[in-house]
């Protein structure tokens, strides 16, 4: 690669590579056009899931996330990732262990068993924040990379929870009505739309999807009602778990509640891929539970 490329260790997580591989493929290809090279983080595991795993033993959550961080420390490279859940585990554990000696010593005690040591020598970024960051990429560069503008489409942004919240520990500012994701959507030639209770959770997190599916889907259903109300053609997000909840959730909602939305759900990287000229086949959009056909007809 050319010397102008910024290199990052690409932390994949679980749902992107194992359920929506189009997100992984799109992240690698679209980032390359924006001067960001994603290199494999060999031997990485589940982040591990902050809600389902951290909920039962935070100490193991710290230690396993730290193991993933050490893999990148050994590459001497910052991590980037494309999932809010992974961001919570990887970014937050990195942050906590850098600032809490007691927890860090505890983690290093167990990491010593596998000949590893957490040093705190790298940073962790969500790919979406690298795209928005003027120093790395910026909205204009994203706009310039578009070869097939998504003109005439209305897209509802879903920020999810764990990138921005809790705001006092993060660096994204307002969490009541942020607008920066809309800028990135509009840069693709699409029209971002506002809807009721935009910042509400998708309903999947905290192990609730596994614990009480009906409860979890009821939260999702409320969001879908609000998105449909403003006539959106698709939802976009930057978290494969939210994507799974909205996408497969629509099938489950149709079964359980009898409500049908047929609302395509696309990761921002898939959307960016389409706008940069990638085909639906190159994005494995056929793996989505909700057919993206109506949306694709508008742009292809």
């Amino acid at each position, binding site marked *: 690669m050319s010397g102008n490329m910024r290199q990052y260790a690409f932390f*994949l997580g*679980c*749902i992107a*590579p*194992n*359920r929506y*591989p*189009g997100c*992984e493929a799109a992240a690698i290809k679209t980032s390359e056009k924006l001067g960001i090279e994603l290199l*494999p*983080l*060999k*031997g*990485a*595991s*589940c982040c*591990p*899931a*902050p*809600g*389902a*795993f*951290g*909920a*039962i033993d*935070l*100490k*193991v959550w710290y*230690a*396993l996330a730290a*193991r993933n961080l050490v893999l990148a420390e050994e590459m001497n490279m910052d991590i980037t990732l494309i999932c809010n859940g992974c961001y919570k585990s990887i970014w937050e554990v990195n942050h906590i262990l850098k600032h809490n000696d007691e927890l860090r010593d505890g983690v290093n005690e*167990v990491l010593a068993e*596998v000949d*590893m040591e957490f040093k705190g020598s790298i940073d962790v970024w969500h790919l979406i924040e690298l795209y928005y960051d003027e120093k790395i990429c910026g909205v204009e560069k994203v706009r310039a990379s578009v070869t097939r503008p998504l003109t005439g489409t209305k897209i509802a942004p879903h920020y999810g*929870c*764990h990138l921005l*919240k*809790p*705001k*006092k520990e993060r660096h994204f500012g307002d*969490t009541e009505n942020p607008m920066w994701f809309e800028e990135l959507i509009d840069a693709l030639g699409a029209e971002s739309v506002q809807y009721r209770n935009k*910042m*509400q*959770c998708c*309903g999947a*997190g*905290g*192990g*609730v999807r*596994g*614990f009480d599916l009906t*409860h*979890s889907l*009821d*939260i999702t259903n*409320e969001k879908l009602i609000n998105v449909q109300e403003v006539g959106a053609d698709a939802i976009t997000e930057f978290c494969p778990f939210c994507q799974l909840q909205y996408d497969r959730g629509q099938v489950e909602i149709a079964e359980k509640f009898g409500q049908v939305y047929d609302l395509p759900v696309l990761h921002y990287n898939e959307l960016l891929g389409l706008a940069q000229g990638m085909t639906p086949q*190159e994005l*494995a959009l*056929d*793996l989505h539970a909700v057919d993206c056909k109506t949306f694709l007809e508008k742009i292809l």
Partner: protein
Amino acid sequence: MARVKDYGNAELEEKLQDTSYYADDANPQFLEDVKKLSRTAANMCFQCGTCTGSCPSAPRSSYRIRLFMRRGVLGLEKEALNDPDLWLCTTCYSCTDRCPRDLAPTDVIMAMRNLAFKVDIVPRNFLKTVQLIYKTGHGVPNNDVNRAARVKLGLPADPPTTHSYPEFIPGIQKIMDFYKMKENADRILSEGEQ
């Protein structure tokens, strides 16, 4: 010399010296454990209810985050840990962002879930995730349909994670064994099947 107030009842005097809440089933240590695990000053909660008002789970269930905050302050350990509503928090952190006392109710719930696991109270789906990560390194492992799709995309059939490098899995197992996590998960799951 100032007169010392005295109720003439040694037992009462001792209770008045102790500022902990008194109820038969209250455990003051519970609050301390919650504070340590959650890294938030849970005792500062003044019960305004902003948390419950912000909660996406509250309108569709009996789950009330404010109630759990109170149980923490009062040391009502059994009441908190035995309530299945404890597992309805999606960890969206809306309550944490809006708390006027700058507390993290979400992390209080996480702490209580940790304490519940210590006494074998935990929903099965959480334990299954533990078993999957122990076995494969992934909470959501790869499958054949997905492998075929990955190959079509020009990606390796298995991602460059523990799926392609299984030599990393023993290290993950060692870390989990250090805390006896898998052992406990297996035991609780098998006891549930009996």
